[in-house]
């Protein structure tokens, strides 16, 4: 599959934005600027970038507690994102949701979700809407390896398959459900094989190879758009950080430093950079230019968040009902 150069550059930029954003969040969280919990996406950027590259603004995604990458890749603006992380009134959710619950229905982002497996049925419902009312649109559901043990996974897959809904189930298999390794929570290695049980295609790709993800996702999305029904797309990847910021030593209680370092060598961004250099798609300087732009963009979002006011106390009573 030939990927247009422009798309490749875009993939690169998206991953850089995610990485730069998350690294800043890491520092801001440590310094107490961001309250609550922060689950960072560093190391998994290729999945969000690769999948979302083929989505139109009107397509839907559901996300997870580790949702910053998905939301950025789907086109979210960094300012309200960062403001939301700060709990500010200018955040995507007026500061009421925080890191785990960023949503922008206008951008097709049906919300990050704090409940493992919570997003799957919602994506099925979005797929139903597409089928009935918006032919050609699709819903993408991001979830983790651990959620694939949840009842909602199986029930949603079955439902989507039976009704040939345009849903792409994207399993980000990062090898851990919090502290529990994949080997401890399921006996299979490739979650994609579960697709067979529901009569839909199951594909496993290297989740750190953005081009591979892009290709597989594009195919699944196209199939869904054409009424071909759902696909289970498993992307094998790894989170560099702990389950959440503050998880001691990036999860050293349940995994080794060596393992982390091993995966850091497979950094999806460096990998694409090598490809870009090799194919002469971009120069080092161009890449650095993107980094510089993006870092400024992220810094701007921090300034925006810091300058924004907290919501007034009256806001606590708002939005309970529509």
């Amino acid at each position, binding site marked *: 599959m030939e990927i247009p150069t422009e798309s490749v550059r875009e993939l690169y930029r998206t991953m850089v934005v995610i990485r730069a954003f998350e690294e800043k969040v890491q520092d801001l969280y440590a*310094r107490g600027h961001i309250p609550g919990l922060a689950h960072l996406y560093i190391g998994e950027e290729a999945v969000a970038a690769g999948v979302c590259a083929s989505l139109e603004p009107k397509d839907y995604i559901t996300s997870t507690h580790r949702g910053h990458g998905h939301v950025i890749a789907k086109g979210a603006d960094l300012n309200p994102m960062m403001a939301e992380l700060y709990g500010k009134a200018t955040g995507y959710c007026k500061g009421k949701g925080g890191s785990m619950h960023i949503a922008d229905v206008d951008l097709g982002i049906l919300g990050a979700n704090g409940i493992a497996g919570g997003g799957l049925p919602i994506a099925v419902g979005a797929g139903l809407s597409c089928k009935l009312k918006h032919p050609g649109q699709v819903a993408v559901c991001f979830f983790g390896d651990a959620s694939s043990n949840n009842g909602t996974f199986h029930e949603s897959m079955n439902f989507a398959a039976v009704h040939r809904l345009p849903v792409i189930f994207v399993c980000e298999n990062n090898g851990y459900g919090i502290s529990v390794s994949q080997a401890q929570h399921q006996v299979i290695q490739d979650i994609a094989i579960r697709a067979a049980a529901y009569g839909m295609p199951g594909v496993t790709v290297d989740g750190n190879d953005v081009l591979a993800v892009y290709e597989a996702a594009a195919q699944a999305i196209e199939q869904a758009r054409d009424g071909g029904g759902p696909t289970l797309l498993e992307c094998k990847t790894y989170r560099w950080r702990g389950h959440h910021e503050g998880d001691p030593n990036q999860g050293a209680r349940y995994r080794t430093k060596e393992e982390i370092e091993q995966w850091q060598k497979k950094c999806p961004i460096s990998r694409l950079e090598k490809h870009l250099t090799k194919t002469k798609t971009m120069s080092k300087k161009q890449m650095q230019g993107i980094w510089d732009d993006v870092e400024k963009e992220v810094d701007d979002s921090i300034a925006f968040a810091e300058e924004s006011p907290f919501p*007034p106390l009256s806001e606590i009573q708002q939005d309970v009902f529509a």
Partner: protein
Amino acid sequence: MAVEIVLPMLGVTVEKGTIIEWFKSEGDPVKKGESLYLVEADKVTTEVESPGDGILGRILVPAGVEVPVLTVVGVIVAQGEAVPNNYEAVTAAGTETPPPAAPPEPEPEPDAVSSATPHVDASDYDYDLAVIGGGPGGYVAAIRASQMGAKVILAEKDKLGGTCLNRGCIPTKSLLADVQPLHHIRSSEVYTGAGKLALSLAKMQRRKDRVVANMGGGVDGLLKANQVRVVRAEAKLLGPNTLLFQGPDAKETVSAAKVIIATGSRPTPISSVPTDGADVITSDEALELSKAPARMVIIGGGVIGVELATIFALLGSKVTIVELLPRIVASEDPEVSAELHASLEEMGVKIVTGAKAQKVKKGSKGLSLAIEDALGGRRAIGASKILVAVGRSPNTEGWGREDLGLRMDGPFVEVNANMETSVPGVYAIGDVVGKSMLAHTASEEGIVAVENIMGSPRQIDYQRIPNCIYTFPEAASVGLSHAEAERQGLKVAVGKFPYRFNGKASAMGQEQGFVKIVSDAELGEILGAAIVGAHATDLIAEVLLAMDLEADVTDLGEVVNGHPTLSEIVKEAALDCRGMAIHKP
């Protein structure tokens, strides 16, 4: 640029951490992401990564010291950069820890606070008390309520001070004070050329206006000093707790937990003699006249009638009082009426009692009032002004009484002993309830109403409220008259002492009058008193105090007064109840 190394947020429950080991020393180069130090929190150790590239400029928290999360534990500087000197090291013993970042302040937004709190504030009203009317009842009530801690609003559509200050007590007293020296001089034999003395009513009016204005400002100041919000507006009760204020430049609705109606009264019109504000007038216009009329007929020989008769008689008007009842100031002891009757006649006032005003005729020569006397005889009295002073009527309309459905007591608003109307929470005081249409009654009723509202129940004893008449001489009374006491079947002992037996009165040349005390023959309880004579309105105070303290006539008779003073008359009258007056033959 220096980068601070903090003890990071280590998960949701960790609040403190102890640094176990620094992997770098001061001066060592560090790289972003490289492990800098080991911290133990909650029995878990964590390696903390460098937040930036540079040189570890300073270690602020050495190993072995426990500090709160977010404490700055070290500083990274660029090559060659000095460590800013605003950091203080924390030692094992010392605790000069910079405090962790203050929790974010909520945005100040006053109205948001109440909605954020799920608990509803007990007071749902804008004000604790709203007072309608700024007369001596209303403003006194407002001040007392404010003194007791209530948030008060007062509405006055006209002038603060009400009838008393603007059209009653005070202006008449000002005018009376001006004419009194003339009366004194005329009735004295020692002055010569007294006939040439003249009074300028216009100047009197100016002085009166000044007095009224000064006192009005005083009331305003008192209300302000007591944080009472005064609205110059007409008030209307839309419900027991809702008031609409409509003024020249204001229209607003407020709510109040309690309301006091103090709308006062106005001169009572009589249909047979309609007033026109020019020829046939009420006391309101009489107090504004700049020229004394040549002939004045006053319909009504009550307090207002006799006081105005005194003023105008001394200003040179030929005054005739037409009184329907058999005697003037009929509410007073007959002896008081007789004494005042005599003194008014002495001033040249003609008094027709038992006569009914029939009709006014306006002719080229002026007015004439047809009257019918007790026996049915009719005649006409010529006049240049006719003053209708037959009493005052409560202001019971225009403020929402009808819609609220307040029960009435005749023309007045009905109240119970706590001054509360038939609608709970709505109180009424003063002339509009008509218990005794006097300024000091209104004030006391106002205070009693407020104290009941504020939870200190109290009632008024109307038997202990004095009546005062500012004629020459003055008259004052309190409690039961002799006749009323006897009518009640009480065994009474009456003590009476004339002014003329008193040294001060004689020396002053004010021998007219007496003090009369009505007491219970057995207990000696002071049932009432009536005084006619100079300073009667002040002298009654001693009797009031005795009554209020439930002293008996013996107590009052045992008071040692200065000599010579008029107060000796009171003492002697008290003694006389026991037949023990010293200076009485």
